[in-house]
């Protein structure tokens, strides 16, 4: 009879190889799923994982890769700090939307003025929007002990309704012939977040993502706060004895993750999306949760995972056009990926042993 024996220290080998194994198992399981649903399995897998990089039209898709990976990495970096400390902000999608609304509103308020200061102000407002939205679950958690998972998630639906309200209302384009949605920010140079290098998909969001990765790496490996975050996640009791204030960590982790999600929203709405519409958000906030876990909550891992999931997002778009798969089916892939990853984590935390007698 096989039994599990807890390892004193998680295996580094398994911690690093499980993400790769999980990706391969997801491809196999995904192929089986597509075959069962009567879609060509090999073509579907190739379309999602291969075509964005190496097909005939890859020159276009490659720039899309950075467009998708940037916000995913930015949001996931913020989430990973909280997840390490056992603070579950799963409402990043709502903070992303609020960042876009706040930042976009500031930009639109200045229209049609020109000035170098407009875009920085928008960035600031975007971060503030995300932080404020994340402060609601943080406040309720620290003050009343309310579950942050449920509150942050409920706020996603509230944010979505707010978004639709402003795109039909106060922020609607006065010259938009009655269509919902704001003015097109890419036509407004002072507020536009264009590619820094033409045609690469690398805009200010990419810069922010790089800075966030470096800062998170420094924080976790060189700063006392990073140590406290990891300590609280592994042993909350020991952390309290060690003088860590749990409420302070809630505020900090929620604030950082909310701020980064808000930034991602602003960069998206001023860049690739170009306008606030009731459905400009495409679920980056939820995909980023998968990115954070697949990257083992480690900054470098998150970069790799962000590119991989960015790839599936691009590939999912191609599959939608060429194979008629619904857009959300890529979520099934992401869910499976997380399943396999979590399932195989057992090998990094436990050892398989043959037990000769069974008493359990």
């Amino acid at each position, binding site marked *: 009879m096989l039994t599990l024996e807890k390892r004193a220290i998680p295996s580094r080998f398994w911690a690093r190889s499980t993400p790769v194994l999980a990706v391969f198992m997801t491809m196999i399981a995904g192929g089986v799923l597509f075959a069962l649903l009567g879609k060509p399995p090999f073509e579907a897998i190739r379309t999602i994982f291969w075509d964005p990089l190496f097909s005939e039209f890859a020159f276009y898709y490659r720039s899309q890769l950075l467009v998708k990976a940037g916000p995913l990495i930015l949001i996931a970096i913020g989430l990973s700090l909280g997840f390490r400390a056992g603070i579950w902000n799963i409402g990043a999608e709502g903070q992303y939307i609020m960042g876009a609304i706040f930042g976009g509103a500031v930009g639109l308020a200045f229209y049609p003025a020109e000035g170098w200061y407009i875009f920085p102000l928008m960035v600031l407002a975007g971060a503030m929007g995300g932080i404020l939205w994340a402060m609601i679950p943080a406040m309720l958690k620290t003050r009343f002990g309310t*579950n942050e998972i449920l509150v942050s998630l409920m706020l996603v639906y*509230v944010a979505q309704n707010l978004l639709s309200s402003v795109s039909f209302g106060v922020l609607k384009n006065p010259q938009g012939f009655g269509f919902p949605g704001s003015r097109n920010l890419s036509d407004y140079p002072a507020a536009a977040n264009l590619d820094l290098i033409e045609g690469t998909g690398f805009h200010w969001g990419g810069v922010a993502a790089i800075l966030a990765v470096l800062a998170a790496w420094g924080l976790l490996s060189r700063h006392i706060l990073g140590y406290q975050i990891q300590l609280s996640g592994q042993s909350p009791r020991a952390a309290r004895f060690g003088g860590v204030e749990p409420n302070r960590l809630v505020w900090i982790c929620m604030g950082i993750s909310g701020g980064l999600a808000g930034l991602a929203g602003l960069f998206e709405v001023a860049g690739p999306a170009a306008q606030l519409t009731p459905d400009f958000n495409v679920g980056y906030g939820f995909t980023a949760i998968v990115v954070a876990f697949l990257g083992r909550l480690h900054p470098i891992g998150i970069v790799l995972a962000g590119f991989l999931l960015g790839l599936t997002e691009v590939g999912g778009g191609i599959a939608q056009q060429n194979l008629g798969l619904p857009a*959300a089916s890529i979520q099934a892939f992401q*869910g499976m990926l997380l399943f396999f990853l*979590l399932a195989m984590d057992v090998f990094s935390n436990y050892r398989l042993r043959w037990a000769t007698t069974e008493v359990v």
Partner: protein
Amino acid sequence: MDLSAISPVLLIASLMVSATPILLAAIGELVVEKSGVLNLGVEGMMITGAISGFAIAVETQNPLLGLVAAALAGAILSFIFGFLTQVLLSNQVATGLALTLFGLGFSSLIGKSYSGVKPPASARLDIPLLSDIPILGPVLFRHDLMVYVSVAIVAGVWIMLKFTRAGLVLRAVGENHDAAHALGYKVVRIRLLAIMFGGACAGLGGAYLSLIRVPQWTEGMTAGAGWIALALVVFASWKPWRVLLGAYLFGGVTVLQLNLQAAGLAIPVEYLSMSPYLITIIVLVIMSSDRNRTALNAPASLGRTFHASH
């Protein structure tokens, strides 16, 4: 605005219908949490139930078969969660989120060919004589079968947890899995059964939404109902009859805001549509503000991984 168009009798009758999906999902999750497991995948199981039930009902033209299929689909999906968290000892929060993501994607994958299709109609139980009573008749006795089934499940869960040995064992496992294990109870097996019961209930709730309440299939149609069901369990302090009360209160809010939208109240539609979520947050805050009470009611082993090391 014309508030006189809102009839209180119809309002109460329709709140029972609108509450049934979350009532089913929440009573299932209550059993899961009583066994010490936190399954955050309710939303994913609900939407999978919604599409499975819908597809089977359309293919067989039999709504009852659809409901059975939905319960099965929910149970199968929850078994994945159970296997991962109980046998492979994965983190319950992360696994539950994965379940929700997977369910949302999977349902839209199979649901694509079913959008715009009309499901077979479910029969209403017009209980003779009783349904003719003024006011009480339309409120209580003119619903479809599932409204009564959901109340029966609540009663069944209450009896099981309070008066049976099986319920006592389930609660013991949820309060202290190590002690329960030492007494010889099969912690993992009991939890797996509880998880699958929760999955079946969530699946039924989803199918009720797509087959009876709406009735139609649209992508992402549960729109957070699964998460509200999770909040409802906290609101109910893990007590079955309070889940019923909470679900009906919540159904009332939903129906009222829909009626106000239709009556053309001066408040924009978006603010009315966000009210159920805001009310859920407020209720959660009120319930959790008294920390001692929450700590007393919540199963002590909730969300903790059980590993029998000896």
